[in-house]
């Protein structure tokens, strides 16, 4: 049997990414369906993440699937010493698809190798979070009408921010120009700059964050700068407000520029920006629903044709 699991989006071809975008568009047109009636989707959250779990469960519920699962490792057997493999084998007896989040890196890859049913990675430690990447890409496509030749500015914690790393890799097919804006301590790691070099992706690094630096941006991808990432707290105090996006900084921004943020935000984006037409982070989160509907269906072997010719549409 072909393994339909989704562990990372970094391996997806350009065609596959575009195909998933088309599918997400269909789900945005008609979100409520009975396409997954009779299916059981399990959400196994070995580490809590309310946002991601709600988004996946809503995606499955709105397509008519039933959802089972657990969230906290404290209430499951994983603390009783059961291996991940044993938990996956047990749940695969009940569910057609397993959506899992785990604190260990590589957990989803391993689960996909032992599981008889497809796995969707809903985040494995600092490693991959492909559904976030898919919704980011879908948001970029929706706001720009294309994925090709865009200027993508990534701001904040580029060292530990796994969402920017995954996005960087997934965008390699589309000739982007990246701008990395980060404090010295949270710079884009060499391994990702090497990745850019190997794949001929253009990038520029900045430490200043001003109206001028971001004037050419099509996408401004903001991330959290977290205190606990700093070894030197003086350094944190010095830089924390330098990577805060304030309304006047948008005065030279291009009309098509949109601000993305994986949420939750802490203080990276001034609240006054929420009403500005460049703000897109709340719609971005909503796109997660359609992107995840597409990923769930793809993992279950449902094709774009099936979705386009679906007669189970409710609304």
């Amino acid at each position, binding site marked *: 049997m072909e393994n339909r699991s989704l562990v990372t989006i970094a391996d997806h071809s350009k065609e596959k990414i575009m195909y998933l975008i088309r599918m997400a568009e269909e789900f945005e047109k008609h979100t409520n369906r009975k396409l997954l009636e009779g299916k059981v989707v399990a959400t196994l959250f070995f580490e809590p993440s309310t946002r991601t779990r709600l988004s996946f469960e809503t995606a499955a519920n709105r397509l008519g699937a039933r959802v089972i699962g657990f969230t906290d490792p404290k209430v499951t057997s994983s603390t009783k010493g059961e291996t*991940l*493999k044993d938990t996956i084998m047990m749940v695969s007896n009940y569910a057609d698809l397993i959506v899992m989040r785990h604190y260990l890196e590589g957990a989803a*890859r*391993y689960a996909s190798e032992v599981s008889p049913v497809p796995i969707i990675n809903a985040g494995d430690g600092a490693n991959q979070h492909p559904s976030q990447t898919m919704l980011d890409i879908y948001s970029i496509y929706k706001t720009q009408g294309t994925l090709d030749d865009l200027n993508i500015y990534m701001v904040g914690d580029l060292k530990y921010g796994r969402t920017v790393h995954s996005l960087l890799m997934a965008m390699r097919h589309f000739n982007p120009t990246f701008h990395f804006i980060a404090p010295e301590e949270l710079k884009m790691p060499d*391994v990702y700059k090497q990745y850019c070099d190997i794949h001929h992706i253009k990038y520029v690094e900045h430490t200043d964050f001003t109206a001028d630096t971001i004037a050419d941006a099509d996408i401004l991808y903001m991330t959290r700068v977290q205190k606990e990432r700093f070894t030197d707290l003086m350094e944190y105090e010095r830089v924390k407000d330098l990577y805060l996006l304030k309304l006047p900084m948008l005065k030279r921004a291009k009309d098509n520029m949109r601000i993305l943020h994986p949420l939750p935000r802490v203080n990276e984006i001034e609240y006054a920006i929420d009403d500005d037409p460049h703000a897109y982070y709340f719609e971005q989160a909503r796109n997660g629903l359609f992107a995840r509907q597409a990923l769930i269906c793809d993992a279950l072997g449902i094709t774009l044709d099936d979705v386009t010719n679906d007669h189970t549409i409710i609304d």
Partner: protein
Amino acid sequence: MKRQELLVAALENGTVIDHIPSNKLFEVVNLLHLEQMKTSITVGYNLKSKKMGHKSIIKIAGKFFSDEELNQLAVVSPNVTLCIIKDYEVVEKKEVFLPNELKGIVKCANPKCITNNEPMKTYFHTVEGKDGVLRCHYCNKEVDLDHVKLV
């Protein structure tokens, strides 16, 4: 020269692993599971070498390894030389080449990697465009061959 050769017994049939850096000797022993072998094994440790200063050498009687087994040695000592001996004659000389995939050999350095928390085999790939670097199949962390630890 003659004296040195006398230190290690001549081999009728088997495999000679030469030019092992002395600090890697025990890793070579572990990789090939020599401690479990029943045939006679001669180990020369800290021998003088023109090429390397000091080297170690292992002679394993009556044992011929597959290329797959031997290529694992590239992880710890990429410059070893191998001689296959039959009837006291060297019938083949070999070098080792780092395989594209390594299963169950190298330990992942990432404590949060699933391979360090679940009873399972590790799995590494070589990285395109980066010589001497391995990437964990599971957590994607890269490790330099100079810094690898064996499982």
